[in-house]
Structure formats: C-alpha cells, structure tokens
C-alpha cells in the first residue's frame, strides 16, 4: 500500500501535466503554426515583414517554455540554439526587415516550426496517453458503480468491453484497474518521452553547437583582450605616478645633496634621509604592484599556499582546505587565485561574516573551489557586482561560477575550471 501511495502522487502529477500539455500545448502550437505559416507567406505581400518577427518571437517563447517544463518536470535538458541578434540592429523598417531575414536564415527557426507540427501530432498523443491512462479508469469505476444502467439497451464500449449490465460493468472496472496500474507505471515515462521527442527536434545540431562555441570563444577572447589592456594601463599608471615619480624625486634630492654636501652638511643630511624614505616608499609601491600582477607566494608555491597566505591576511577567521596533487598552468592558477581573492574581498566587504571557509580540490579534470561564509547572504551575480567580474575572469578558461546566497546566509560561491594538473 505504501509503494502504491508513494507512486500515486508523482504519477497523478505527471498525468495532470500531460493533460495540461495536451490541451494548452496543442492549442498554442496550432495557433502559432497557422500564424507563422500565414505570416511567412505574407512576406511577399509586405505585411509579413512586420508580423513575422513578432510571431516567430512568440514561437520561441512557446518553445522556451517547453524547454523549461522539460527541465523542471522530467529533467530533460534542451539547449537553446537561437543565434543572437547583432548589437547594431537598426531601428525602424530596415531593422525590421533585417530582423526578419536573420530569423528566417536561422535554421533553429525552421526546426521550431517543424517542432510545432510534431508537437500538435505525436507530442500531443504522448501527452494525452500520459493523462488518459490515469483518468480513463475513473470512467470504468463510475460505470461499475451504476452508470451501466443508462446503457442497458445500447451497449457502451469501454475499451473493448461492451457495457450493458452490472457484470459487464464489473468487467469494465477490472479493465480500468488494469489500465490504472499501467498508468501508474507509464505516465511519468510517457511525459518524459514527450519531452525527449521535443528534444530530438528542438536541440541544436552539431554545426549549431560548434557555431555557438565559436561565438562564446570570440566573446571571451574579446573580454580577455580588454581585461589585459586595462590591466596594462593600470600598471603603467601605477608605475608612472608611483615608483617612477619617487625615483625622480630621489635623484633630484641626491643631486641637491651633491651640491650642498660641503656648504651645508646639515641640510644635505636631511635630504639624504628624504631620499632614503623615497626609495623605501618606491619599494613598497613596487611590492604592492607585483602583488597585484602575480603574487610572490603564487609564483613560489602555487595556488594552495597562495590562497592560504591570502586567508592569513583576512580580518576574519578562516579555514582553508587544499587537495591539489599538482600545479595547474600558470594562467589558470592566476585566474583562480584572483577569483578567490575577489570572492574573499566581497565576503569581507559585504557579508558581515565571522568565519570563512575555502576549499580547493581537483577531480575529474576539474579544479573546484568553494568559498563559504557564515554572513548575512543576499549576494547576486548582477551587473557591476564583483561576482560578474569573477565570472568573466573564469569565462576565459571555460570556467563557471555559481552562487548560492539566500537572504540571511550562508553564502557559498562555487567555481569550476576545467584543467589538468602537472
């Protein structure tokens, strides 16, 4: 009985969703398909140019909604294959024409339309089946309970059972029970197969996946180049305004000392002290600069100890666990180090945490880092936040960032970078 009730809820839910899909999905799919076909054929008349992007946009939304349901209901991932629009799309009529051509050139658009056809036929059948196997038995129950009397003269076909008496009513009930048990087992797989069918039509082809990858690589390369250029500018400025200026001052002081040393030894001594101070300050600035480019401990010991050293300088208590059997390539180490550094800075600045835990380990070709604090939470990856900076930094290495930070805490920032250790 426990097994029965344990399975009843998810099966019934799958059946309900199947019913919902077969009604709403069917209606929307048919409407959109008709509109899309009409709109595209009206392009020749001119009107279609204006309606097509709107209709196709609606189709995409409809498809994306199905992708979302596939993910949340049956754990079926359907990637989004649409080509992005260029950023400099012109407004007005020309833009509209451009948009229409771009959308029509995108093979994903045509697959969307094909999917609408599949969805309103085979897709709907699967969804209906998922629902019917659970709902139809109810009718058997009702027939057995007394509805058979209505059909005494003219037998009603319940499945393959002609119902016209109590006995045949019971037979219908028996058939219903069998169907119900079948539904209990089959409704979830049927719903899932509905989404799998959608995936075979909707998922991007290999060519499209490659195109998307190229797109992403171009984007991250641009970002990497921009970041590197900005970094060089910062270094140049720091050197120019800091160490360089101090060395110039020092040279000037020493020159004056040379002139003064016999005439006014006391003044010369003062200037020498100033020169020494300048040299110490220049060193401090250079040291900070070096730490910002490539921290010495990272160069000397690698990521694990560099993060440990970083944690030692934090104003909050910290715990660092490192399980790295080797060293990653220098650029990866550097990106990971600065990502951790940024995450820790965020924690110190915003989280009001008392403890922070950093965990680094490497498994299955993936460097995994988590930074967890017991602070107040509420961190988001948004525009301009430090976390998006980390995301960009990791993006260059195909790394990803995930943040879990409910209001009230705790905050956990997880980073993954594919890399090999040596």
């Amino acid at each position, binding site marked *: 009985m426990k097994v029965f009730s344990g399975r009843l809820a998810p099966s019934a839910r799958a059946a309900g969703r199947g019913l919902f899909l077969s009604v709403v999905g069917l209606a929307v799919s048919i409407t959109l398909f008709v509109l899309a076909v009409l709109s595209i054929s009206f392009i020749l008349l001119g009107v279609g140019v204006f309606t097509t992007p709107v209709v196709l946009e609606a189709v995409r939304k409809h498809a994306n909604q199905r992708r979302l349901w596939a993910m949340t209901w049956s754990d079926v991932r359907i990637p989004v294959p649409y080509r992005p629009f260029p950023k400099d799309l012109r407004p007005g009529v020309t833009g509209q024409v451009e948009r229409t051509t771009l959308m029509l050139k995108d093979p994903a658009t045509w697959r969307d339309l094909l999917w609408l056809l599949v969805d309103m036929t085979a897709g709907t059948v699967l969804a209906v089946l998922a629902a019917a196997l659970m709902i139809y038995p109810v009718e058997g129950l009702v027939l057995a309970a007394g509805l058979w009397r209505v059909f005494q003269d003219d037998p009603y076909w319940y499945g393959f059972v002609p119902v016209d008496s109590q006995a045949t009513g019971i037979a219908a009930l028996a058939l219903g029970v069998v169907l119900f048990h079948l539904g209990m087992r089959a409704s979830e797989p049927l719903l899932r197969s509905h989404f799998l069918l959608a995936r075979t039509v909707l998922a991007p082809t290999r060519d499209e996946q490659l195109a998307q990858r190229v797109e992403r690589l171009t984007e991250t390369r641009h970002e990497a180049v921009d970041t590197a250029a900005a970094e060089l500018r910062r270094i140049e400025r720091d050197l120019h305004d800091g160490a360089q200026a101090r060395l110039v001052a020092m040279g000037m002081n020493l020159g004056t000392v040379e002139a003064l040393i016999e005439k006014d030894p006391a003044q010369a001594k003062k200037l020498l002290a100033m020169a*020494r101070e300048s*040299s*110490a300050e220049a*060193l401090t600035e250079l*040291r900070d600069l*070096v*730490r910002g480019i490539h921290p*010495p*401990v990272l*160069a*000397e*010991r690698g990521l694990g*100890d560099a993060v*440990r*050293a970083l944690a*030692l*300088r*934090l*104003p909050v208590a*910290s715990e660092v666990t490192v399980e790295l059997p080797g060293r990653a390539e220098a650029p990866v180490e550097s990106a990971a180090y600065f990502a951790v550094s940024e995450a820790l800075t965020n924690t110190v600045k915003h989280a009001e945490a008392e403890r922070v835990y950093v965990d680094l380990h490497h498994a299955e070709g993936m460097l995994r880092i988590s930074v967890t604090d017991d602070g107040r939470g509420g961190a988001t990856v948004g525009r301009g936040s430090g976390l998006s900076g980390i995301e960009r930094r990791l993006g260059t290495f195909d790394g990803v960032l995930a943040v879990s930070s409910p209001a009230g805490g705790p905050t956990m920032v997880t980073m993954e970078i594919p890399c090999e250790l040596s």
Partner: protein
Amino acid sequence: MRVVLAEDLFLLRDGLVRMLEAYDFEIAAAVETGPELTKALAELEPDVAVVDVRLPPSHTDEGLQCALAARRARPGLPVLVLSQHVEQLYARELLADGNGGVGYLLKDRVFDADQFIDAVRRVATGGTAMDPQVISQLLSRRSQDKPIGGLTPREREVMELVAQGRSNAAIASQLVITERAVAKHTSNIFGKLDLPPSDDDNRRVLAVLAYLDRG
C-alpha cells in the same frame, strides 16, 4: 662571528658582504644558488646564515626551503631570511620548530645598517627578528581575538616589540619607560597568553608562536 650569505643579485650580495665585514663579521661563504647554500651550511657550520628567499636555479622559495632543511639537520641553526615581500605563511614555517634563532626581514631593512646588524646579532644568539610588517599584520588581524584583545594598549605595544625580537632594554628606550616597567608588562603578557615561567628568551619566541597559532 662567521656568516654564510646567500643572495643571487651580485650588487646586493657585494653590499651585504661589505656591510657585514665593516661590522666585524667573518664571511665564511657568499653563495648565489640553493645547492651551494645547502653545501655551505652543511660543511662550514657558520654561526649564522643570511639567506634570500628566492634563489636560483628554481627562482622560487628555494632559499627558505634550504634554510628549513638545514635547521632540521642542525636544530637551532641561526637563520635570517631576507625577502622582497613578507608573508605570515613563511614566518610561521620559520618559527614552527620553536627553537628560536630565526629572523625574517624585508630586504629594505638593510637600508638601516645599525638595525640590520642588530637583527643579525640577535638571531645569531638565539633570539628572533621578525619584520614589523609581519607583526603589524598579525596585530591588526588579531585585535578582535580574545587573548590578544585582553591586552591593554600599552601591553600590545610592548608585545609588538617583543615579537619583533627586541630586548627589554631596547623596548624601554623606544617606549621611553623604565626597564622594570617593560619587565612587568612582559610578565603580564606571558600570563595572559598562558605561557608558564621558564627561560625568558624562549618565552619570547613562544609568545610570537602563540600569535601565529591563533590563525
């Protein structure tokens, strides 16, 4: 006093040799790589080693590693480590065996010859010489922690100088108080840090360790 010096930059090595000789140290060897340093430390048995953290051939923390290895082979071998940057991580490793006779200073400190020579002598006689930067980092970080938070501002000042490795007399003159007052403060500090009475010099090393271990 016989010194082994390891520094890969010729100018700095030469300058250090001149400076140490000017203050009556005997240079047993002035080497420029890690393997040479290891050999010199094993064969020449100097009174103190002055070592740059970063040495060839690896140009990583080879000098520090050689110094640590030599101290494992000969516990208490006095080592003064010089570095372009100071890290608590390294300070912790140097102090970890609790034997004393270690120093860890920024290279800039050689600008002030008297203080630098003082540090070398302190290390050679089994004391410590920690860079003020390491100590100030520690103090700013630990100020919220219980045992350190329990120190009065004056005691904290004294602690800072003790951690750098200064003697009671030096602390007294720097803070312009009597030596007796310093002794009273240090014994209060040792009490608050739970360090039982024993050889006073060693307790100073332990006090620094007590800081480091609260991380």
